[in-house]
């Protein structure tokens, strides 16, 4: 039997089940989006698959009713944990007017929802890093107790904005947690061609903050390190850089064919560590995830995904002239 590792982290059985369920919901929504894409119903998908454990583990370690997040495009697990619904995500996938992220203006996975403190994101990578630092600066100026949390891919950690943002946070000891989701590829470019030092967390030293590399397939390990980072942040000890290592299980996006640059075996090997599978094994081993609960989850999630899809598919697009709105305050 597996050793119970969540108890010592202060996580109840209900909480870890909730984590698992969130991971599973993210995965199932993502899978459905691929089906919809292949069926010609939605033009584009970019996946969370393989990164759900890191996303959900991190989100659960935050204060989900106070902290601000600046997620990147793969973070379906993060935004679900922060209150965005399956329906809302599907509305975005279908580019419908009711999509709270952008009213159908942006591609799917360009998250943003003020009521859940999800900063609006764009396509150029890494611009969100200074934004999260700015929110953390506001927290410090206003003497508030929240933190900001920002994610990006390991390739994106080579952008100037990563450097400028993290150094700024380091100088002013701001309450911001940066998590690099290292999935070993930036589209076709593998880490060894992307990073002078493949261990992203080693960059923390240069900014005067602690850096940690953790197993991104283990939601509990990620939970722990983010939790500790949050504790440090709210007690004025400043920022943390975390690298969660996993693997991108799908092609980069629905527009990519990964056979040109990586082989099947490598992907198959990574699948064995897929957290949706390994975390379930852990929970089952401990008798927490019973067959009954598993069935219940599956059924519930299936109907959530179905309903979300049906609703979003039937929802109207924005009128053409809606495009003219909100360039400036109106």
């Amino acid at each position: 039997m597996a050793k119970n590792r969540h108890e010592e982290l202060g996580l109840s059985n209900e909480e870890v089940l909730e984590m698992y369920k969130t991971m599973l919901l993210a995965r199932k929504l993502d899978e459905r989006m691929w089906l919809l894409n292949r069926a010609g119903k939605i033009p584009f998908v970019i996946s969370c698959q393989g990164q759900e454990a890191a996303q959900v583990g991190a989100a659960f370690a935050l204060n989900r009713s106070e902290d601000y997040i600046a997620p990147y495009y793969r973070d379906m697990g993060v935004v679900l944990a922060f209150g965005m619904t399956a329906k809302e995500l599907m509305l975005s996938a279908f580019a419908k007017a009711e999509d709270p992220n952008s009213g159908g203006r942006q591609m799917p996975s360009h998250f943003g929802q003020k009521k859940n403190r999800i900063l609006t994101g764009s396509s150029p990578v890494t611009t969100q890093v200074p934004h999260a630092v700015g929110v953390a600066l506001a927290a410090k100026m206003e003497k508030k107790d929240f933190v900001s949390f920002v994610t990006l891919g390991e390739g994106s950690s080579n952008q100037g904005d990563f450097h400028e943002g993290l150094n700024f946070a380091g100088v002013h000891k701001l309450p911001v947690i940066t998590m690099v989701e290292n999935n070993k590829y930036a589209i076709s470019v593998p880490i060894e061609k992307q990073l002078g030092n493949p261990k992203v967390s080693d960059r923390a030293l240069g900014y005067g903050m602690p850096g940690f590399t953790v197993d991104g397939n283990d939601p509990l390990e990620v939970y722990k390190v983010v939790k500790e980072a949050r504790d440090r942040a709210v007690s004025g000890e400043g920022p943390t850089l975390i690298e969660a290592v996993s693997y991108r299980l799908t092609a980069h996006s629905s527009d990519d064919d990964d056979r040109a640059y990586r082989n099947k075996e490598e992907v198959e090997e990574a699948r064995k560590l897929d957290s949706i599978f390994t975390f379930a094994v852990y929970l089952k081993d401990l008798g927490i995830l019973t067959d009954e609960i598993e069935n219940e989850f599956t059924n519930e999630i299936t109907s959530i995904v179905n309903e979300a899809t049906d609703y979003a598919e039937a929802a109207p697009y924005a009128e053409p002239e809606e495009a003219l709105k909100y360039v400036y305050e109106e």
Partner: protein
Amino acid sequence: MPVMSYIQAVTTALREEMQRDEKVFILGEDVGKKGGVFKATEGLYDEFGEYRVLDTPLAESAIAGVGIGAAMYGMRPVAEMQFADFIMPAVNQIISEAARIRYRSNNDWDCPIVIRAPYGGGVHGALYHSQSVEAIFANQPGLKIVMPSTPYDAKGLLKAAIRDNDPVLFFEHKRAYRLLKGEVPTEDYVLPIGKADVKREGSDITIITYGLCVHFALQAAEKLAEDGIEAHILDLRTVYPLDKEAIIEAAKKTGKVLLVTEDNKEGSILSEVAAIISENCLFDLDAPIQRLAGPDIPAMPYAPTMEKFFMMNPDKIEKAMRELAEF
């Protein structure tokens, strides 16, 4: 009404807005203890403390980007770019982010940031401390670009920019800082962003310009007035988006239009002004639309001979005005 310099008007606007609203804060390079390389923030560090007059690391993309994040949260950042020339590393944050935040979130988020920067030449600043950079941004819906020409306008427009709920680029001519003085009310007032302003009434020729060139054009106009030629001078004040109605009205007024900028000619703000006029009042014109601008070379050289060759001045404007008047 007290007389103050252009830069004093800027400082006054900053101080008053910071006193009025605790959310307003300044960030930039050397803005704190030193009070800015031009002294635009002098005294504010002492009055408001480090975190409201924040010396940042030397990193413009972070200055803009951190400001944008704070603005999304609800603060009112006023970021300073030490020279307009050094805004370039922040272009991605300004264009891809600040300008698009309201639009891309379908009005869920907004980004009330002001980015101030001293621009312009005639100060031995050479290629990288003399540039006019407004044209780079003057094609990005979501942004507003303000370039005041007098101390009075500087105070009223900077206050308006800080209170505006959208991102505003605010370019101050660095030679105007101490050259221009004028009466500035001690009371609180704001001037409307997006509105041009007639700086001189006249019936013979129309000059449309902005920034320090307004001052030069007014000087030239006085010379012409001695010979009975009356110039109508429209100060654009906001160079993006442009005040179309005011431009059309000013062009129609005299039918002879001279556009003036210190920037290079091709692709400048003047191009759009000319396009608006030629689209809307072609048949009201008595002469081709004239543009007087810097030459199409990368920027103003350092050597005084070549700097003078590039830099706008009252004589060059006067000459162009006379030619147009005689057309």
